[in-house]
């Protein structure tokens, strides 16, 4: 067990050079600004990645013209979105219409605040971190419901009802999968959950609980795909089949806020998957001396982003390979299959933990 320091050099530097209350304020402001930059950069990179991955799956090249490998394409996209006129239909409820796009992005931003990017890169580490995540992720549903109703359009309302039902149902099995890890590691704090996975790769929770961990990981992937509104479970918008879902009436900034929240959410949920099941910022260790030293030399945040990136690629892979489900199939998949299985899995894991059958 290695004792990881929670203090970042930059934070220490500020604390050493400023009086205490000012330093706390400066550190807080700094972390918020860094998170905001991260949100924007992640969104831009993911838009690019999505277009590239989608193109490759369809035997195309994707964006190639704007910048090297088309890397500047998302910047062109976002400039276009920003410059578009923000049309407000006459009959909408103004407060609801403008409040709604802010809520989902706030929710995903708040989730990033407890994400352990490295052993010393985490804005806050509440003891009940998992409860916090379950609490703030409700804001996304609120935003979608309010937006769909405020648009004063029956397709938007139907779309938001569908989205609400979907998000609400799938949140259950997602939280149950995370609960399993909380139970096995005995802590709700995300940092300590990562630190409980120290050792070799076999000590990651996906392998450490024989069977139950891997099953929970698969269930987490499925339910978080639905939670992210991504294909094949993207019934709330289903751009090729339905009239845009809850954001039918949104244009310009309003639409891009929903869009941004979706991509940041994908990053957050992949990051949570890496944190809970794949050892978060810990370097993979295989029990082979020299290789382990080389891998452990690479800083933790690179491992975090590598694991997160791998999970994001899996989400994109799902989206561009599987056909879309129908809404009644989607809901019965959750209530008749995923939820009972994740509950049984939780019981199985509880038995394993009480019997002490955790792999050494």
């Amino acid at each position, binding site marked *: 067990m290695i004792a990881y320091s929670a203090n970042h050099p930059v934070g220490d530097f500020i604390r050493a050079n400023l009086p205490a209350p000012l330093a706390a304020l400066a550190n807080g402001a700094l972390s918020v600004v860094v998170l905001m930059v991260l949100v924007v950069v992640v969104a831009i990179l993911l838009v690019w990645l999505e277009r590239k991955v989608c193109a490759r799956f369809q035997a195309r090249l994707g964006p190639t013209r704007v910048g090297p490998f088309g890397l500047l394409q998302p910047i062109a996209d976002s400039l276009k979105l920003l410059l578009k006129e923000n049309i407000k239909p006459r*009959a*909408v*409820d103004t*407060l*609801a219409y403008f*409040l709604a796009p802010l809520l989902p992005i706030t929710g995903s931003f708040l989730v990033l605040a407890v994400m352990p990017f490295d052993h010393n890169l985490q804005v806050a580490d*509440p*003891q*009940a971190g998992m*409860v*916090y995540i*379950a*609490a*703030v*992720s*409700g*804001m996304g*549903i*609120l935003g979608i*419901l*309010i937006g*769909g*109703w*405020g648009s*004063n359009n029956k397709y938007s*309302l139907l779309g*938001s*009802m569908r989205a*609400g039902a979907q998000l*609400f149902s799938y*949140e259950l099995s997602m939280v149950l999968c995370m609960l399993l890890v909380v139970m096995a590691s005995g802590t*709700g704090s995300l940092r300590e959950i990562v630190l409980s996975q120290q050792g070799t790769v076999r000590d990651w929770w996906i392998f450490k609980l024989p069977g139950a961990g891997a099953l929970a990981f698969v269930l987490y992937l499925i339910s978080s795909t639905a939670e992210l509104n991504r294909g094949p479970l993207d019934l709330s918008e289903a751009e090729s089949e339905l009239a845009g879902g809850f954001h039918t009436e949104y244009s310009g900034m309003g639409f891009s806020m929903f869009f941004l929240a979706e991509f940041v959410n994908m990053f957050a949920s992949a990051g949570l998957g890496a944190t809970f099941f794949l050892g978060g910022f810990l370097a993979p260790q295989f029990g082979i001396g020299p290789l382990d030293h080389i891998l452990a030399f690479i800083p933790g945040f690179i491992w975090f982003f590598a694991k997160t990136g791998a999970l994001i690629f899996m989400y994109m892979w799902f989206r561009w390979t599987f056909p879309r489900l129908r809404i009644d199939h989607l809901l019965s998949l959750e209530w008749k299959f995923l939820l009972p299985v994740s509950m049984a899995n939780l019981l199985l894991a509880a038995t394993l933990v009480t019997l002490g059958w955790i792999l050494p």
Partner: protein
Amino acid sequence: MRDLFFYGLSAALLGMAVITVLARNLFRAALGLLGVLVGTAALFLLLQAEMVALVQVMVYIGGIMIFVLYAVLLTSELGGKMPGPSPLKWVFGLAVAGTALAFLVDLVHKAHCTLAASLMPAADGANDAATGAVNAAASSGATAVSGGVASMHSLGLRLLDAGPNGFLVPFELISVLLLAAMVGAIALARHDTREGA
């Protein structure tokens, strides 16, 4: 500094509560209620009851508010205004609110007296008698852990403790109640579909 936070928060909370009660548009009232619940969670945070605050957000905002919004969205019209309440409703409302206020003032007064009489964290007893199991667990958790933090750990241990200080039996009884509610909901929904089909 903390006092300043408290007064600011309370002012915002009261404002939201007034909006909730007085708004003629059902949707605005629901948004006001949302604000009140967030404000209450912030008050819990100010009391360093981190777990209670998070549970407040998760249960009320993530769960109950979404159902309230569902109900509002399915039943009310956009920009619709409800008629003002009748005088009889005003009278009943004021009576209920007045009783609750008198009760609270009495409670605060008693707690203040006991606190002044013995400089111990003695508000515990009064709280236990007056408020529900969760609140009691929170406040006693606060005294159990140094630093006054009602943490997830102490709350969980207290809820599942079978001893005289634990809440195991109420906890299990509540799950039976929830089960009954679920079975009832399913029975109602199933009855409807059969008649419709």
